[in-house]
């Protein structure tokens, strides 16, 4: 199993450009998450999904959109990139609580380093 993979690993954008970050997981997890991490800070939740076809806002959703058309994929879109969106983006997935698990091990991808000039 590859676990959680993210595409691309690095990207440089100009202000106003758009792009989509792809997250894929092969663990059949129900829940998926997008975080951003700025230097010296912890991760902040952007959007998350509790199942195929559903999405919800996290702490810092402004300027981002997401889609979960397939269970294994979670896409993060930036419609008009701004320098304030320069960050490292992490995707994560976890099984649903309904699966009987009481823990919450989120499995993280390797991250995408995005620079907006």
């Amino acid at each position, binding site marked *: 199993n590859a676990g959680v993979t993210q595409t691309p690993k690095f990207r440089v954008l100009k202000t106003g450009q758009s792009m989509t970050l792809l997250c894929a997981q092969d663990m059949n997890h129900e829940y998926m998450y997008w975080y951003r991490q700025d230097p010296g800070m912890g991760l902040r*939740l952007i959007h998350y999904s509790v199942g195929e076809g559903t999405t919800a806002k996290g702490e810092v959703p402004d300027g981002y959109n997401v889609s979960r058309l397939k269970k294994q994929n979670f896409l993060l879109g930036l419609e008009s990139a701004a320098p304030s969106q320069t960050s490292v983006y992490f995707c994560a997935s976890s099984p649903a609580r309904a699966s009987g698990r009481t823990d*919450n*091990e989120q499995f993280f991808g390797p991250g995408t380093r995005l620079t907006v000039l």
Partner: protein
Amino acid sequence: LAKTTQPISMDSYEGQEVNITCSHNNIATNDYITWYQQFPSQGPRFIIQGYKTKVTNEVASLFIPADRKSSTLSLPRVSLSDTAVYYCLGFSGNTGKLIFGQGTTLQVKP
């Protein structure tokens, strides 16, 4: 979700036991306490999770007193490879959402 407070940084030496304490005064009845580890340029990795009393796995132990207003992560006999950022988080059982703080940067010295 519980807001957590932990030290910004800690130093230790190889072979020592390290205890990192986290405060979560407003923890809700349904919240679990979860700890993650993050190495530079990598995503966080789950270490341990507990609700109350003591939990132990092959990596660490987690102590949560009866009032659940704090918790302590214990790393036995640390090595240089344990140098990382350690996050104490509250976990919502309904959505699986985690709220990360700044974490504790642990520096293990030879």
